[in-house]
Structures are given as C-alpha cells and as structure tokens.
C-alpha cells in the first residue's frame, strides 16, 4: 500500500479537521456573545445541581468488564483475516476457526456461569 492509495484517506482526514474547525469558528463568529459566569462552568448548565465530585474511586467491577471486553476484542481481531479469505481457506480454515471459537466459547460459558457478567 503506497502513499497514492492513502490519498483518499488523507482527504478524509483533512475534511474532518476542516469541518470541525469551521464549526467552531462559525459559531464563535455568529453566535450570541459569551459572558463568563459561574453557571457557564457548571457540568450541566441548566440541569440538576451536582451532588459530589466526579472524581471518585470506581468499583473494580468496571475493570473486570473492561478486561473481558478486551479479551474478546482480541478474538474479533483474529477473525477478521479469516473473514477476508475464508473462501480460499475452505474447510480447513473453517475447522481451525471452529476450534478457536470453541475454546473461547468454553471460556464464555465459564464467564456466564461464574456470574462475571452480573453486577453483584
């Protein structure tokens, strides 16, 4: 993949950056004048009052969920190459992928039975 093929991607990146910049510039040019006040710096300007700081210690359960997500994300990564060439690989590739997914399926069954997907 050479630089020429990356050109459309570069155009896309340029367009995204340009659009975002343009939106900010336009709204600051034509929008109502800003007044700096305390409310402006609230998390929810016209919503409920904050109860507490958001910087609190999070439960380790989030971490476990994130970790399980990460592991199955990696599974997905390995399935993409298979999906691209599965016709060429034929039955052998199907067999290999089945084995891969079967092992992970056992893992998923274990996670489910262990109750790691529940918020206890």
């Amino acid at each position, binding site marked *: 993949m050479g630089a020429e093929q990356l050109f459309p991607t570069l155009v896309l990146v340029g367009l995204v950056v340009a659009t975002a910049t343009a939106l900010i510039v336009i709204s600051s040019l034509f929008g109502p004048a800003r007044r700096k006040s305390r409310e402006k710096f609230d998390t929810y300007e016209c919503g409920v009052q904050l109860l507490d700081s958001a910087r609190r210690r999070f439960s380790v359960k989030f971490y476990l969920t994130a970790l399980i997500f990460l592991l199955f994300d990696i599974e997905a990564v390995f399935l993409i190459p298979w999906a691209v060439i599965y016709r060429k690989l034929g*039955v052998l590739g199907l067999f*290999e992928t089945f084995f891969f997914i079967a092992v992970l399926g056992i893992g998923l069954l*274990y996670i489910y039975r262990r109750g790691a997907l529940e918020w206890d």
Partner: protein
Amino acid sequence: MEHLIAEMKPLSPVLIVFTGALAALLAGVFSKKENSYALPYIGITTVAFAFVALLNYWGRGMIWLLQGAIRIDSFGLYISAIILIACLITFLASIGYAKRLGFEHGEYISLLLFASGGMMLLAMSADLVTLFLSLEIMSISIYALAGMARHRQKCNEAALKYFILGAFSTAFLLFGIALIYGATASTKIHAIAQVQGLKPLLVAGLGMLIVGFGFKVGAAPFHVWVPDAYEGAPATVTGFMAVAVKAAGFAALLRVILIAFPGTWAEYWWPVFWAVALLTMFLGNIIAVFQKNVKRMLAYSGIAHTGYILIGLVSLGIAGSEPYIPGMKALMNPIAGGMLFYLLAYTFMTLGAFAVISLAARDEDDLETLDDFSGLSQRKPVVALAMAVFLISMAGVPPFGGFIAKFYVFKGAIDVQGMLLASGVKEYHALALAILGIITSMFSVYYYLRVVWFMYFREPLEDRPSVAPSWGLHFVIFASSVAIVVLGILPSGFFSVASRGAEALVR
C-alpha cells in the same frame, strides 16, 4: 485436514493438559460448592493421562510438527516430564491446603494446568512465535496463581510485583525476538543458526533474550522479584513457581541459546553467563544467610541454584567456542545431562520443602519463620526428618540427590578446564567458576543447617495448634524424600535418561 489431525497427535500430552484445564474450569462452575473437594482429582487424572501420552513418544527421535513450529524431541519430553511431576505434586499438596486458604475452586486447578501446558509447549517450541505465546500462557497463569489467596495482603503484593516485573521482562524478550527477526527474516530457531557472519542486530537480540529468560529463571541481576513473589504466594504455588517456571525457563533458554547460537557464537554469550552465574551464586547464597523467614530463605536459595545450573551453560559455551580441541565435543553431552539432572533433583527437594512449609503453623499461615520450625522434630518427627533430607540435599551434602547434581555440574566445568589446559589454552574461567561455586555452596550449608538445628535442638515455643495435614501432603513429603534419596544413591540410571534428554541439544 486429515494431515492436520495426524500432525496434532504427537502434541497429545499438551492437548490433554489443555483439555483438562478447560474441563476443570467448567467443572468448577457447574458443580456444587460442597463437591469442590473433587476438583484436584480432575487435575491428577489429567496429569496421569498426559504422562502416559508423553512416555509414548520417548525414544522416537525428533518429530517436527506444523511447519517447524514444534519439535518434539528427547529434551522437550524430559522437561515436560519434570513439569508434569511438579504439577502432580502441587495438586497432591493442594488437597486440603487450598480449602484452608479459600481457593479450592476450578480456577486454581485450571490455571495450574494451563500453566503446565504452556510450559510443556515452551520446552518443545522450535519457533520464536510459538515460544512467546507459550511463555505468555505460562506467565499469565502464574501471575494469577501467585495472588490466589486473595484475602492475604502479602499475597496480593506478590502477585502485583511479579506481574509488573514479569510484563517488563516479557517486553525485553519480545523486543529481542523482533530484533532477531529483523536480522535473519526468520523466527525459526534452527534457521537463525544458518545466518553467517557478525550481525550486531543479532547480538542485540540475543542480549534482550538473555534479559528476558534471565528474569524467568531468576538469575541475578534480574532476581529482585523472586523473594517477594515466593514469600507472598501460597506455599503450593510457590513450590510450583520455583520448580516448573525455572525448568521451563531453562528449557527455552537452552534451546534458543544452544541451537540458534551454537559453536563459535558461544564466544559472545558465555562471558555474559559467566558473570551472571557468579553474581547469582554469590547474591543468592549471601543474602539467604540473613533471612529469618524460611520461605524467603528458600527463594534466595532458589536463586543460588539457578547460578549452579548456569555453570553448566557456561561450561557448554566454553567447550563450544573451542571446537578444534579434540575430545571437547564429547564432553558437552554429559555437561548438558548434568544440568537436566540438576533440574530433576531440584524439583523433588524444592517441592518437598514447600510441601512441608504448607503445613500450617498457626491457624492458616504457612510454616514460615524460623521460630515456627523450632521443635518440629518433637511435634512431627517424620515431617522434620523429611525436611532435614530436603535441606541437606539442597546444601549439596552426600548421599542425597542435590549432592550428585552439584557434583555433575562442577565436574563438567573442571573437565572442560582440564581439556583446555591439556591443549595449551591458559585460561581459567571454567575452573574459577567451579571453585567459586564450591565456596558459595559452603556458605549455603550454614543457612540450611540452621533450619535443621531449629527443628531438632530448640524447644517448641508454645503449643501451636496445627491442622492435620491431608493424605496428599503426607504422600508428597514421603515420595519426594524417597526420590531425593534414590537420586543420591542410584543416580546413574537417572543420569543416563537426562543425558538422552540432552542429546537433542548437544550430542
């Protein structure tokens, strides 16, 4: 597809272990809590089947599998056998112990099996990619195992320290593999040896690999994790970590170093290992003298044992870098055999010692401090006798296996030195290492015998309530001490098996 299945057949010992691991995982979550005492037996059965499958391939020569990813040879099978023995002993010792510490669940059994399977593959890998993945399977399982007793703060500390330092060292290993691939365009261990000439990139990769493996086997200066991890982890896990991780780490190290960097390449690596071995022996033995905690003392002694095994690698390197000396090549197989014999003897004495430690001293803590050991001979005479056998064997006093192991290693270094002098090479590195090894070995007698002295010549401090050990623990302590005595009295048969194991590396 048929040929793939056929190719998987020689891999059956590993596949059995992984299947057992998955089965234990499912059995743990599908069975009732009151039936969890049966879980270790799943592990024991798995190991037994795997061992039978393993013996089936002993003596069949080399089998290459899966386009050179795996080479099943006598060396891989020998190390795999050590790992399975260590795993079996750990399961037996865990009966009762795991319940007392609150980790009698499927995950414990499963992670031990996953780790063993990874280690066996590590010993059989002929490709750096396979090697890296099996190393990761082993390491990740062991990180979790080290933190198994979750309510103990020390245990959490051990797991975290081991994990962070382990991940750091794995990065070095991976970087080394990448550099080697960059220099040779191959990850096959055998293909790397074909590259001609000096390649700084390859040397850089070799250096990174030495750092990575040095960490796994606990060689100085990469040993700092060992005392904390060994002290904090539950005693059964510590025993497994000490023995199996070291055996698997040495297997990978020996295979990569001796096959990918053979012959005159040794000139690059043996001076490094010479310094590492010296530092490891001195640091391990000297710091062990000052330990009040027996688990920590055994950790430093484990570091020292790594140093002794490395003497064998240095001797191999010196011998390999002087190939023109007649008779030098013939020395190499016995030296490598001596290293493998050392690993076997180390397995029994270390696992036995940690089995004794896993006897409870107070309510649930391990038998840890020297005070815990005082007067053990009065409370548990048989156990104290077995512990004395393990410790005296570790110190290298005849007639036990540890003495014979040290003898083979030192003899190898002295033989190489003799051969060098006979052909007029006036360099004394091998002799120096052997002599310094013997001197540091004498330090070790002090701290091993101190525990024996506490057991036999001190009155018990108070009447400590002790939990009755399970049959598994009794069996392990008995079998290990018998094995150590047999290895010490009739070593020749075992040594010839070890030499056959070494044939796959050096003929």
